[in-house]
């Protein structure tokens, strides 16, 4: 315990949960959850490295990463809502053609 690798293992586990979700789930919101999980796993790894090396740049990277994923969630949910308005469903297999 208490090695940097412990944190990295946690990150890997989170990442694999995220991958599992991406593969299995067809619910658009769950997909966003999965993406968030993966992003967070990466953030965790980055922070671990930053503490390990040590260097503040890892933290700066995480700040950027969080900001980007916030923007991504805003856009993603906007798309989900608009898709829901057209299809009355948030299952992405239903989204045959987004043009409509």
């Amino acid at each position, binding site marked *: 315990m208490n090695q940097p690798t412990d944190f990295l293992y946690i990150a890997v586990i989170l990442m694999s949960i995220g991958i599992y979700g991406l593969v299995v789930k067809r619910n658009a919101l769950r997909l966003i959850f999965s993406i968030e999980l993966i992003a967070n796993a990466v953030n965790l790894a980055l922070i671990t490295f930053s503490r390990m090396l040590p260097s503040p740049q890892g933290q700066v990277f995480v700040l950027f990463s969080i*900001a980007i994923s916030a923007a991504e969630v805003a856009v993603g949910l906007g798309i989900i809502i608009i898709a829901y308005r057209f299809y009355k469903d948030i299952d992405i297999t239903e989204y045959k053609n987004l043009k409509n």
Partner: protein
Amino acid sequence: MSATFNLAGETATQFLPILYLFGFGILAGVPSIVLSRLLMTRRRYNPVKFLPMECGQVPSGEGRSHFMMQYYSYILMFVVFDVMSIFLYAWGVTFFSIPREATLPMIGFLGVMFAAMGYALFLAGRKGIW
């Protein structure tokens, strides 16, 4: 405690008392609710009582309806500008310890965000948002 890794270091101990107080909040909350569940007057069975309250009317329709205020756009905006304002804090703290020219990118950041906010507010001010 591991020798190589001081987990209970300054940072973590700083934050621990917040958890204490959080715990005290729960300590105040849970017993009072449990006690009040124990002490509360026994309910007589009454089918109407547990209906959602609707002004003395038998409720019509679902409580959790599919309802949307016109101000959804502000929530979207919040997500983005929340990020922005915390970035500003990272800048504000270092303001006096960085050279003056280094403020310029931040001014640029502010300018871009301000323009974006202006346009977004213009968009949000229009009523057709879902």
